[in-house]
């Protein structure tokens, strides 16, 4: 017994969990701050949360080129985890910046909102650094439970309630599948460690024929695919994205999605490397399905948030292409693409946050007619973000897709790259329709309610800077993404 305790203490390495520890600690402090602040004033908590994220960012950066393993190998904070943590921190920061004014406009300036975002980010960092299915599961749940609350945050608004409940039910349902998968894998391999599963696959090359192992792996995959919103497990995405508060929608499509990709990549590439040929076939089908469904259903959407939800599904499909390629370019392209997607999608949503009226019933195609003339700056900025989402040079979206598809071509999946490019062509239609509405339709309204506030403007400026910088000078970040890959 004494030996066990001593061993456990020796295995503890606080450095490995420091970023999420710092962030959750600061989030708890901020919860107390909001308890003792006046009801209805949340601006100071917002700025303090941004500060907390900056502090966490610096702590997380110490993990770069300095991998820290701890807790008997269940946490590994390496370059890969650092990269994904930084993506989540950026996404959370941009969300908080665009939220302050938004919450006041919707008459719900409640400061618990910000600590919840921080908890979500901490969970995302757990997921990115977890090397044991137990830690990954815990991170996933910390992330999800906070997000259920955030999606249903406007408790007086039926639409938000509904989004929260739908997310909750489908999220908990998919957690059941994920856990059952973990349990079956545990039964076959005797461990929940990703490395242990890899060792089992190496020792038993015929693992692909073991029914229980395959069932476990597939159920686990279902849980992850649900979180990244890949078809055929995407059905919750449009409803939840449409009903949730707009900044939260932006956050969900960037931070948690990146974290889910991080966990998926680690489990697949480290844990199930021995089954590469079987898995790539599966991912090939999933990638094509996800891209195609996302893009084609987006064509018929009138609501902008819903359209961006389907666009987010299709972008998950593009990212899955990197997993099909399973080579250095493809995998580092996923990391790069997640960062690019964070900037371009958060930027587009930030513009929507600005142009929405209270209640946001005008965020549809008719509601933005003539925006380009009435609010020229916002029109141009939104156009740039949409061009990036389409993948038009010189924006970052083009570079991201280019790397992704070149990884697929290098691995010999020419047809997959062709399908991906054709899908991008389809997506032109619904992105450009927004631009057409903005510039070629007579303004139905004067957009007098749109007032540009500093925090949201900062958030848009950072996103714009990111999109243009990575579009024109992608080398630095691509190099970092290569170093962060496996």
């Amino acid at each position, binding site marked *: 017994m004494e030996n066990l305790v001593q061993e456990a203490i020796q295995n503890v390495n606080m450095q490995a969990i420091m970023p999420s520890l710092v962030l959750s600690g600061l989030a708890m402090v901020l919860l107390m701050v909001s308890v003792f602040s006046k009801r209805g004033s949340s601006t100071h908590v917002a700025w303090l949360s941004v500060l907390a994220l900056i502090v966490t960012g610096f702590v997380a950066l110490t993990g770069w080129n300095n991998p820290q393993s701890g807790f008997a190998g269940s946490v590994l904070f390496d370059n890969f985890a650092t990269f994904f943590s930084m993506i989540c921190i950026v996404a959370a920061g941009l969300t908080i910046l665009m939220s302050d004014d938004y919450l006041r406009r919707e008459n719900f300036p409640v400061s618990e909102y910000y600590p919840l975002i921080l908890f979500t980010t901490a969970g995302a960092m757990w997921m990115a650094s977890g090397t044991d299915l137990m830690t990954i599961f815990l991170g996933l749940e910390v992330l999800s439970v906070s997000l259920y*609350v955030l999606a249903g945050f406007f408790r007086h608004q039926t639409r938000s309630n509904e989004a929260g409940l739908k997310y909750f*039910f489908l999220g908990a349902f998919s957690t059941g599948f994920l856990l059952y998968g973990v349990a079956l894998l545990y039964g076959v391999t005797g461990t929940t460690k990703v490395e242990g599963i890899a060792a089992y696959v190496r020792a038993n090359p015929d693992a692909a024929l073991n029914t229980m192992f395959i069932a476990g792996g597939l159920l686990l995959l279902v849980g992850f695919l649900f979180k990244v919103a890949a078809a055929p497990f995407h059905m919750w995405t449009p409803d939840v994205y449409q009903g949730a508060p707009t900044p939260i929608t932006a956050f969900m499509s960037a931070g948690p999605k990146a974290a889910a990709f991080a966990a998926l990549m680690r489990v697949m590439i480290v844990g199930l490397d021995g089954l590469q040929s079987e898995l790539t076939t599966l991912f090939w089908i999933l990638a094509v399905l996800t891209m195609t469904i996302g893009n084609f259903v987006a064509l018929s959407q009138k609501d902008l948030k819903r359209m961006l939800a389907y666009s987010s599904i299709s972008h998950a499909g593009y990212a899955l292409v990197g997993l099909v390629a399973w080579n250095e370019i493809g995998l580092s392209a996923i990391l790069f693409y997640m960062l690019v997607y964070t900037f371009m999608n958060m930027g587009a949503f930030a513009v929507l946050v600005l142009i929405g009226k209270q209640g946001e019933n005008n965020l549809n195609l008719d509601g933005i007619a003539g925006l380009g003339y009435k609010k020229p700056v916002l029109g141009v900025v939104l156009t740039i973000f949409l061009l990036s989402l389409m993948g038009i040079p010189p924006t970052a979206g083009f570079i991201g897709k280019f790397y992704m598809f070149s990884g697929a071509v290098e691995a010999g999946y020419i047809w997959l790259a062709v399908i991906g490019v054709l899908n991008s062509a389809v997506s032109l239609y619904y992105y450009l329709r927004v631009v057409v509405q903005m510039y070629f339709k007579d303004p139905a309204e004067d957009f007098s309610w749109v007032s540009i506030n500093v925090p949201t403007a900062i958030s848009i400026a950072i996103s714009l800077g990111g999109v243009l910088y990575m579009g024109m000078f992608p080398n630095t970040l691509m190099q970092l993404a290569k170093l962060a890959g496996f």
Partner: protein
Amino acid sequence: MITVNHYLLLSAILFAIGTFGVLTRKNAIVIFMCIEVMLNSVNLTFIALSRHVGNMDGQIFVFFVMTVAAAEAAVGLALMIAFYRNKDSIDVDDFNMLKW
């Protein structure tokens, strides 16, 4: 003689019952209970396999699953109450504001 296979069969049946309930029931509370059945069937799997495999990892996992299930229950019931206050119903057929 009850072997690990009996436990696995029982938990698979429970999991199937839970899944079936989630897909067919209309009342949000009942759906939630079905999800709990699924999670508990997973717990049973873990414990049975932990004994079969011969290490404690599975049993530790069960503690985490129970904790998470409790946290989810708190959040889920709160969301249901908020919905009920606005709609006077927790029937999933009334989740009808967001579609196509």
